[in-house]
């Protein structure tokens, strides 16, 4: 049957070439399109995670929903001791965040002001590498303020200037101080750079009366794929008033947005597959229609309906396999190449800064599992496309088919 199928493929060149080309195009397009879509989503998530958000964060319950000083973590050291016992955690840091009004001699701006651990922060976030001017914080940097470039621009301040801070301390008392601008950073995230400033925790804790307290504890895991397992371990070790959340919950809006984007992407690409499916089916149908007498003769000499189905299956399987074997390495190479050398669209991050885009790069994703399911879909569609022609040809009685004109 296999040899007969091969012979038929070579004999009916028109149908074979059309099926090969269309299958090749659809497999290639699917691999490249999905790789680009997944790549841009992964990149957005990765960028968002590496800027400031952790892969796991520990909060007092209701801090995220209600907020306020009543919902601060009040025994950071106890939780940190438990974290030390869990494998897979690279590092962690406790941050104390508050909103306050920062003012230079001429301008004021509302800002997030966070007390961070200067030695741990560089391995947790991009704050240190995002340095533009001046210096990053150190445990002894005192009242040094490390602020986003867009915030500094709003304040019309320069390095060395005094910046006043007005806010509320962790016990709800009034807190005010004079900071000194020691460094500026640019992460690329416009909203973050325009409304965030950092100060060494040792100094900030004195001002905010926040010793051993934290808004949350930020955790970096060794392998992002283990995040759920580690989160389960953390949840088992902390008491009920504390919750441990992974990036999937912390960035739910972004995850959902990507899901919506993927849905639209798949709907769009499905048009191609519907059309290509029909065209392959039409060519398959035309092909069997022109071979009714041949199939009639085969049935007359003893071939069963099942054998005819097997013959047609082999034909489409061989054609699909050839096309996919050519398309897959090319598609995989394109996906790999652009995952290493992303496409750059100058000005894209500036244009879409309000939407959290922080890079001009569109990297592709190279994932063998994704490529495998992509080509499986193409295989499946091609095989489905031959079902109607199979049913059509088997609807003829052998003698009727043998005499068909």
């Amino acid at each position, binding site marked *: 049957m296999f040899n007969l199928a091969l012979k038929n493929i070579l004999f009916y060149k*028109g149908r074979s070439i*059309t099926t090969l080309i*269309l299958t090749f195009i659809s497999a290639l397009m699917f691999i490249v399109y999905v790789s680009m879509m997944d790549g841009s989503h992964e990149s957005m998530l990765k960028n968002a995670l590496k800027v400031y958000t952790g892969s796991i964060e520990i909060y007092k319950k209701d801090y995220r*929903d*209600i*907020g*306020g000083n*009543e919902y601060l973590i009040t025994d950071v050291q106890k939780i940190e001791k438990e974290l030390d016992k869990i494998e897979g955690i690279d590092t962690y840091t406790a941050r104390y965040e*508050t*909103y*306050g*009004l920062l*003012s230079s001699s*001429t*301008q*004021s*701006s*509302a*800002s*997030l002001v966070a007390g961070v651990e200067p030695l741990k922060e560089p391995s947790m976030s991009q704050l240190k590498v995002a340095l533009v001017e001046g210096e990053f914080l150190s445990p002894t940097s005192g009242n040094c303020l490390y602020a986003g470039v867009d915030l500094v*621009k*709003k304040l019309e301040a320069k390095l060395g200037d005094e910046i006043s801070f*007005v*806010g509320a301390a962790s016990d709800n008392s009034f807190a005010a101080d004079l900071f000194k601008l020691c460094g500026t950073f640019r992460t690329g995230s416009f*909203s973050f750079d*325009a*409304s965030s400033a950092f100060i060494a925790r040792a100094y900030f804790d004195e001002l905010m009366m926040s010793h051993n307290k934290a808004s949350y504890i930020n955790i970096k895991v060794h392998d992002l794929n283990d995040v759920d397992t580690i989160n389960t371990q953390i949840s088992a070790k902390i008491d009920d008033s504390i919750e441990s959340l992974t990036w999937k919950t912390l960035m*739910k*809006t*972004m*995850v*959902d*947005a990507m*899901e*919506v984007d993927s849905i639209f992407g798949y*709907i*769009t690409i*499905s*048009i*191609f597959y*519907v*059309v*290509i499916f*029909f*065209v392959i*089916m*039409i*060519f398959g*149908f*035309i092909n069997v*229609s*022109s071979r009714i007498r041949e199939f009639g003769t085969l049935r007359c000499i003893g071939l069963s309906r099942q054998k005819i189905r097997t013959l047609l299956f082999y034909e489409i399987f061989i054609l699909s396999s050839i096309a996919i074997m050519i398309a897959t390495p090319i598609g995989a190479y394109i996906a790999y190449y652009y995952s290493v050398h992303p496409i750059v669209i100058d000005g894209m991050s500036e*244009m*879409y800064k*309000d*939407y959290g885009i922080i890079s001009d790069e569109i990297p592709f994703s190279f994932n063998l599992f994704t490529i495998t399911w992509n080509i499986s879909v193409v295989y499946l569609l091609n095989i489905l496309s031959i079902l*109607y022609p199979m049913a*059509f040809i088997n609807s003829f009685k052998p003698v009727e088919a043998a005499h068909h004109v």
Partner: protein
Amino acid sequence: MFKLILKLAWNNAFLRLSRTLLVIIMIAVSMSMLLAIQGLFDGMAYNMSDKMLRSDSGEISIYHKDYRLNKIIANHVTDAKTIKAKLEQDSEVQAVVTRFSVDGLSATARKSSFANIIGINLEDEEKFGQFSDFLKKGTLDFKKRGALIGGELAKTLKVKVGSKLVFSTQDKNGDINSIALRIRGILRTANVKLDTSAIFIDAVRLDKFLGIDKNIATQIAIRTQSSTLQDKLKKDYPNLSVKNFLEINPMMQMMEDSMVIFNSMIFVIVMFVVFIGILGVMYVSILDRIREFGIMRGIGMKYSHIRLQIILEALFVGLMGYLVGALFGFSGLYYLENVGLDLSAYADAMESFGYETILYAEIKLSYFTNTFYAIFTASLLSVFLPLRKIKKMHPIDVIKADT
């Protein structure tokens, strides 16, 4: 003769019914999906730009020349109300509003966030962009220190209608000043900037709070259909920055351009594959009947008549597919235009990106005309190859041909 050819073409188009039906289904399914997606994408883009026009910039906005780079109180338009009064007299201007906006810190007892307070006149805003359309919860009034707040900011601050908040900022003299407000309504404008940071209060109250002259504004927004008004305003106010919608929102231009390129690419590729489908069927259909054409030519039928018959056959198949596709496509678009695509399950994500949770499609005549031309052309081109084959053959060879 034409009547006979027409009849022959019609009958032959449906001679192999299964084959013809497959082509018609292929055209109809791909066309209706194509129309639905185009309509939905256009609807999303239209909805976004319409709301940005109505809630913020209008077709043209006038600012102090430094304001957009440095949004501080000092960078205001000095005689804004005078300019507004003058513009209202202009027949090309449909509506005009002045706004004063300043950044600061909004805080409740538990949460704080960066915010942008905007002083507006509700009546003017209603005329300008049907402001009441943006209200999602509460009422549209500024009584008793009332304020309206963007939906995302409300989420950040965890406030609802009736909640109190305090807004602090520097006033005209550089002193830190605070104002207590009560939330009267929550807005969704589909403008990410406004939804994530805007607090709207009465313009008069903001003027008093900031200690500024009531004649000044940071923005004068204009609704107009005129394409020449911007140039005229640039000449009239050379010291001010007069920008149109796309200059203020270059992202929308980029989005629009990408949408056109993307939609065109999908359209061309899909129509090309459709062409291959029609070509395959027409080619085989003609080869199947090559002896028939030989006999027709043998008994004296001109080649031009055979050509006409084949062209008509292809057009019948193509146009039947088009009609079914247009019917399904229109039904789909009509549904999406009136009922919409409900993505409430992803409400947070949609709203944070400035989209409605229910997406509505646009219906444009061009969808149907463009597809008509494409299918008409694809049908015509599909017979080119088989016709050449017939033309090259001698009638006797055609009759003898082994198909």
